[in-house]
């Protein structure tokens, strides 16, 4: 079960399990997590938990709610998020280690049962007992997703950490023109004549033939239909245009 760890200036005050659908935080004593401090509004924020997701919402507090230093109105809590209310900090810990082991199982598509009379338990993982071929669920994925359970959100490994490359045109009227390859896919050439695509992947940049009777030429060698890894200072010839591929950073 997810929990919050309440602390003030580095010393832990208490741990609060998110065992209710709605948990309120505020100065008034009737809150689930009362915080006796004038910087905290009477009803400051609340956390609504639905299955694996916990939603933090600021309830229009005077001094606002921060998550990892950014003010929020509504936020889906991710493992290790730090909520700041006044001088107090609440660290969100998504799941215990036991739940973590089952996380991969849980990620499989399953049916959310409505009728409580049904013999099948509500939202029970249908994959129970299935031997997992991968012992570490998060090992294959999420190079930099932090220590918590890997989130199945679309990741963009092509982020800042990845190198950036560009191509520069070497001949013809556009000679000298440079094109940064910032997108996951960049097509080059003339549609209907010859087109190739440069894909940006975690492993680097690759070029693949898309259409046309002629295949692209790299450093004087004609490619086959397969993807070809690009190296710094490779020269690409495509539809009569020569261009150089180079790594910018």
């Amino acid at each position: 079960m997810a929990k919050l760890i309440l602390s003030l200036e580095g010393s832990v005050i208490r741990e609060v399990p998110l065992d209710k659908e709605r948990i309120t935080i505020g100065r008034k004593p009737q809150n689930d997590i009362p915080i006796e401090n004038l910087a905290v509004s009477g009803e400051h924020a609340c956390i609504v938990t639905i299955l694996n997701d916990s939603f933090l919402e600021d309830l229009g507090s005077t001094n606002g709610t921060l998550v990892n230093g950014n003010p929020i109105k509504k936020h889906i809590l991710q493992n290790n998020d730090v909520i700041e209310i006044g001088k107090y900090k609440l660290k969100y810990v998504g799941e215990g280690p036991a739940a973590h082991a089952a996380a991969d199982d849980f990620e499989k598509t399953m049916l959310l049962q409505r009728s409580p009379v049904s013999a099948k338990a509500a939202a029970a993982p249908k994959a129970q007992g299935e031997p997992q071929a991968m012992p570490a669920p998060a090992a294959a994925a999420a190079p930099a997703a932090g220590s918590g359970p890997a989130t199945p959100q679309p990741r963009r490994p092509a982020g800042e950490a990845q190198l950036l490359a560009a191509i520069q045109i070497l001949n013809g009227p556009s000679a000298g023109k440079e094109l940064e390859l910032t997108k996951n896919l960049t097509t080059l050439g003339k549609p209907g004549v010859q087109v190739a695509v440069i894909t940006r992947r975690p492993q680097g940049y690759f070029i693949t033939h898309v259409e046309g009777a002629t295949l692209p030429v790299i450093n004087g060698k004609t490619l086959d239909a397969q993807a070809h890894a690009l190296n710094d200072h490779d020269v690409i010839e495509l539809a009569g245009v020569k261009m150089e591929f180079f790594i910018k950073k």
Partner: protein
Amino acid sequence: MANLSSVLEVTSATHPGMVRSHNEDSIAADTEIGLAVLADGMGGYNAGEVASGIAVAMVSTEMKKALAAKKPDELNGKAAETLIAEHSAKANAAIYQAAQSQPRYSGMGTTLVVALWHDNQISVGHIGDSRLYRLRGGALEQITRDHSLLQEQIDSGMITKEQARYSQNKNLVTRAVGIDPEVDAEVHTYTVQPGDIYLLCSDGLSDMVTDEDIQLTLSSLQSNLPLAAQQLVQQANDNGGRDNISVILVRVVRDFPVRTGLLERLTAWIR
């Protein structure tokens, strides 16, 4: 029965992904009858494969038989929708019975998306969170609406589509084939334009690759559909490949009206 093999260009790809040991998705496409079917199974051991396999095999073979018995002009939007709904219901009954009779298949189920092209139209039925997208004029549109907890949360305004990307509740479907004795497919019919590209996919694609990247891939590689399909699978795997990934891409090469009236038949003959 109209033959659409010169009208539709179809390509498909399916991959277990980077994490799962086996592929529980099933796909089938038949350009002659203009049918594409995709299912994403769920259940322990290999029950997920069994469920999605039954669904795809039943819907594609039974619909082919039913369509062969029909004249092209008998197949309007309404008739196509009925056909999809009926055969989805039959697949549901078959999977449900198999799950009831064999303990190792207990609780198995599958999502299902069925697309049928006919008379310049597409009729699509779906159950669960497998999707149909359409690329038209460079813009990507999601045609089906998931039967999932997340979609309900989006619909009720609880979370935005942007926030939904970070949800942990991605894989909870509210409707599935084979779990209950009866299930209704959601079926709709849309007009088709030449040049449209349709994408049927399992959530292994749509959870791992953003709509923007799907749009970019389809629009830049539309002249080479097999490469586009391969690129979509590769991007899902590059982003973690946490689930099985299946895609069916269908390009509408030209229009395909059913000629009914005498005058129309005559003009068609003269041309």
